[in-house]
C-alpha cells in the first residue's frame, strides 16, 4: 500500500531505515523518514538516525516492501 504524504514541496513517500552497529549483528529497522525523492530520503535518514556510529545503513521505499503477513494475521 502506498501512502502519499503531503509536503510543502508536493507529495512525499515513506522510506524504512535499516542499520547495524557491528558486522556481527543483522540489519534491523531503526526508523523511517518521509521524503519526496531518494536523495532527500538518504539525507534525512543520515541526519535523523545519527545516534550510533552505524557500520551500515540502508533505506527502502515502504511501498517496495512486500508484506506476507502482519502481526495478528494467520500465517
Amino acid at each position, binding site marked *: 500500500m502506498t501512502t502519499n*504524504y503531503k509536503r510543502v*514541496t508536493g507529495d512525499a513517500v515513506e522510506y524504512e531505515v535499516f542499520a547495524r552497529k557491528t558486522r556481527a549483528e543483522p540489519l534491523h529497522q531503526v*526508523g523511517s523518514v*518521509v521524503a519526496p525523492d531518494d536523495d532527500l530520503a538518504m539525507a534525512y535518514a543520515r541526519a*535523523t*538516525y*545519527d545516534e*550510533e556510529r552505524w557500520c551500515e545503513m540502508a533505506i527502502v521505499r515502504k511501498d517496495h516492501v512486500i508484506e506476507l503477513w502482519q502481526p*495478528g494475521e494467520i500465517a
Partner: protein
Amino acid sequence: MGTQAEFDQMIKSGELIESRNEMTPEYLRELKHTLIVSGDTELISAPAYYLAAKRAPSINAFMTGIAIIQDELAHAHIAYHILEDLGEDQEKLIFSRDPKSFRYPYAFDVPLDSWTELVVANGMYDQAGFCLLGDIHDKCSYGPWKRGLNKVMAEENFHLRNGRTWMKRISAAGGSAKDELQRAVDWMFPLSVEWFGLPDSMKMHSTQLEYRLKGLTNDQLRQWWLSTVVPYCEQIGIKVPAHKEVRDGKDVWDLDYPFPCDFDPEAKRWDFKKPATWDDVLVRWRARGPRNVEMVAMFQEEFHKFRKTHQKNGS
C-alpha cells in the same frame, strides 16, 4: 478491528499493539493525545534551547547546544510521524496550529536567558523528559512508539550529561557564576516538579495507565525525578527545596514548600509564602507563558514564507 474484549485481553496480557486496525477508537484517541504532548514538548524545546544556546561561552559549547537541538527535532519527528501514520496531518500539526493549542509543559514558556539556564534545563527538564519517556519506553503498549524511543533514550542521556557536567563546573567555579546557577535552580526546580502534573490524590482515573500508554503515575514519576535531581544538586553544592525522608523503610522525597504555590513568570520568582490551588495552576498553564507565541512563530513564520515563495515559482 477485533472486539473490545479481545482488545482488553491484548492490553492485559502485555502484548504490543502494532497497527491501527487493532485499536479501539478510545485507545487511538488516547494514544494520539499522548503522542501530541510528546511531539510538542520535543519540538518546542528546540526554539527554547536555541534562544539560550546563542549565549554559549565558546564555539564548542555552542556546537553541543546545536547538537542537542538537532536531537530534539528528530525526537519530535518520531512522534509526529507516528501521528501521521495514525491519520493526522504533520504539517498542519506543526505549522498551522494556534500557539496556545500546543501541549508542552508550561516550563518551556518561561525564557531561558543564559547558558547557565540552558544547562540547568538540560539537567532538570531533560531529566523530566528522561523519566517520562523512559517509563513509556519501558511500558508502552504501542509497538512503533516503544521501538522509536530507543534512539530518544540514548540521546536524552547525552543531554542530561551535558547539563550535569556544566552545572558541576559552574558550581565549582564559585563566586558570581555559582550565584547565577543557584538563582536558575531556584526558579527552574519548582517548574520541573510541576511538570509531572496533578498529584495522584486529585487524579481519579488514568486512561493512559489503563491502556499501558505509560506505566507510572504522576507522583511516582515525580518521586523518580526528585530521587535523581536532589542528591545531584546536593553533591555539587547547590541548594534545592526538597529533602529525603524514610517512611515505612522506603525513601520518600518531600518538598520544603507548599505545592503548588504562586509563580511570577516575568520575575521568574516563586512565592513559597503564597500557596496556590491546582485550579490556579491550570489557569496559568492554559493561558501559556511569556515565550509561547514567539517560539511557535519561530518555526511557523518561515514555513508560510517558504510556501508563498514556492507557489510564486509555480512548482
